[in-house]
C-alpha cells in the first residue's frame, strides 16, 4: 500500500539525477517522518506534515539548486530587449513584405491582407517561442559557459530625447502614408472592384499611364520617407526647407499636369464598368472637379513649403537662444 509519504517522496526525487536519488529519498523520508512526529497531536499528522513541507517540486528545486524561474535575472534584460526588437521591427517587416508579395499573388486585396496577417500571427508565435527556449537553455548553462552579453557601462546610456514626440509621429505618419499610397496604387492596378468577362481585373487608373505613375510614386514615396527621416534626425534648416519645396514640386507638377492635360486619367474601361460618364464635353461637373482638385493640391503643397521655412526659422531661433 502506498502512503501519502511514499507519494510525496517520489514526487520530490523523481526529477533528481539518478546518482542523487537514493540519498535524497532517505533524506526526504526522514524529514517527512520527523515532521509527522512533530504534528502527532493533529488529527492527521502525516497530512499536516506534508502541508508544512509544501509543494514537492519546490522542495526538490531548492534541494537540487534548480532555478524556479524560466528566465532568471541574469539574462532577463537581454531577453526582453531582444523581444522588443523582434516584435517592433522584425514583425512589422514580415507583415509588410508578405503583404507586398501577396498583393501580386492573391486574387484580391482582402485575400492578400488575410494571408499576410496569417503569416504574421504564425511569425509572432515563432518569434516568441524560439528566443524564449534559447534563453531558458542559456539560463541553465553553468556560469562558465554563459555567453557574454557585454556588461553595462555608462556609454550605453540613451540620449535624452532631443525631439518632441510630435516629430516622431510625423516621421511615422509620413512613412505609413507612403506605404499605404503605394499599396493603394498596386491594389487599384489589380482591379478588384470590376472584372472583365474573362475574369481579369479592370484597373482604376488608365493602364497607359501605369508605368509612369508607379515609377513616379515609388520614387516620391522613398524620397519623402528619406526626407522625413533626415528632418527627424537633423531638424529643419533652410536647406531642408528648400529640398521640401523641390519634393512638393515633384509631386504637385506631375499631379496637376495629369489632372488638367490628360482627361483619360481614369481608365475608360473602369468608367464603363462603373457606369460613370466622364466626357468633359457632355458632363459639366468634370472640369470644375479637376480644377478644384488642382487648386487643393496647390494650396496644400504651397502651405507645406511655407511651413518648412517657418519651422527652419523657429529651429534656428531655438538653437541660438540659449547661447
Amino acid at each position, binding site marked *: 500500500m502506498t502512503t501519502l509519504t511514499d507519494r510525496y517522496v517520489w514526487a520530490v526525487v523523481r526529477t533528481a539525477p539518478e546518482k542523487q536519488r537514493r540519498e535524497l529519498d532517505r*533524506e526526504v523520508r526522514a*524529514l517527512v517522518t*520527523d515532521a509527522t*512526529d*512533530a504534528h502527532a497531536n493533529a488529527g492527521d499528522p502525516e497530512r499536516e506534515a506534508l502541508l508544512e513541507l509544501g509543494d514537492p517540486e519546490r522542495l526538490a528545486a531548492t534541494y537540487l*539548486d534548480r532555478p524556479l524561474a524560466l528566465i532568471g535575472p541574469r539574462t532577463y534584460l537581454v531577453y526582453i530587449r531582444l523581444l522588443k526588437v523582434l516584435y517592433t521591427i522584425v514583425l512589422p517587416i514580415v507583415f509588410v513584405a508578405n503583404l507586398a508579395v501577396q498583393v501580386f499573388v492573391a486574387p484580391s486585396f482582402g485575400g492578400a491582407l488575410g494571408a499576410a496577417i496569417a503569416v504574421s500571427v504564425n511569425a509572432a508565435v515563432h518569434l516568441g517561442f524560439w528566443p524564449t527556449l534559447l534563453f531558458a537553455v542559456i539560463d541553465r548553462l553553468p556560469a562558465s559557459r554563459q555567453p557574454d552579453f557585454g556588461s553595462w557601462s555608462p556609454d550605453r546610456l540613451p540620449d535624452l530625447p532631443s525631439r518632441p514626440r510630435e516629430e516622431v509621429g510625423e516621421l511615422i505618419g509620413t512613412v505609413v502614408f507612403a506605404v499605404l499610397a503605394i499599396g493603394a496604387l498596386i491594389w487599384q492596378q489589380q482591379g478588384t472592384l470590376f472584372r472583365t468577362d474573362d475574369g481579369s481585373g479592370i484597373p482604376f487608373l488608365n493602364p497607359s499611364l501605369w508605368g509612369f505613375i508607379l515609377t513616379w510614386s515609388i520614387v516620391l514615396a522613398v524620397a519623402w520617407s528619406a526626407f522625413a527621416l533626415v528632418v527627424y534626425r537633423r531638424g529643419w534648416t533652410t536647406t531642408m526647407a528648400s529640398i521640401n519645396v523641390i519634393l512638393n514640386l515633384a509631386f504637385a507638377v506631375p499631379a496637376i499636369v495629369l489632372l488638367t492635360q490628360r482627361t483619360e486619367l481614369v481608365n475608360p474601361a473602369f468608367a464603363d464598368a462603373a457606369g460613370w460618364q466622364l466626357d468633359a464635353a457632355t458632363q459639366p461637373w468634370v472640369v470644375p472637379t479637376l480644377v478644384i482638385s488642382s487648386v487643393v493640391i496647390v494650396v496644400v503643397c504651397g502651405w507645406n513649403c511655407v511651413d518648412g521655412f517657418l519651422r527652419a526659422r523657429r529651429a534656428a531661433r531655438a538653437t541660438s537662444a540659449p547661447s
Partner: protein
Amino acid sequence: MDRDDASAGHLQELRRGTVVLACLLQLRTPDYGYSLLTRLDALGFVTDANTLYPLLRRLEAQGHLTSEWNTDEARPRKFYCTSGAGELLAADLVEDWKRLDASVTSLVRGDRS
C-alpha cells in the same frame, strides 16, 4: 505582535543571514534536521523546513558541515555536525555580528543624544 507587512519583510530580511550562524553554532552538538528546526524555533530563529534543509545541504557541500546517517535508533536519521571549517566560519560570523552590534549600539546612542 502587531506589525505591518513592510516591517515584517524588513525583519525577515534582517534575520535571514543569522540562520546560518545559528546552525553552525547549534550543530557543534550533532543533530538531525527536524530536531534542529524545532530547537532553532524555540530560540527565536524563525525558519521553515523548505529553507533549512537546502541550507544544510549547501553548508555540507561547502564543507562547513559533515553528515552521518545514524542507524542506531528505530529510524535512520541524517545527523549534521559542524566541521573545522564550519567552526572558522562561525567565528568569523560571530566576529562580524559583534561589530554590527557595536555599530548599531553607537548609532542608537548617537540618535538619542
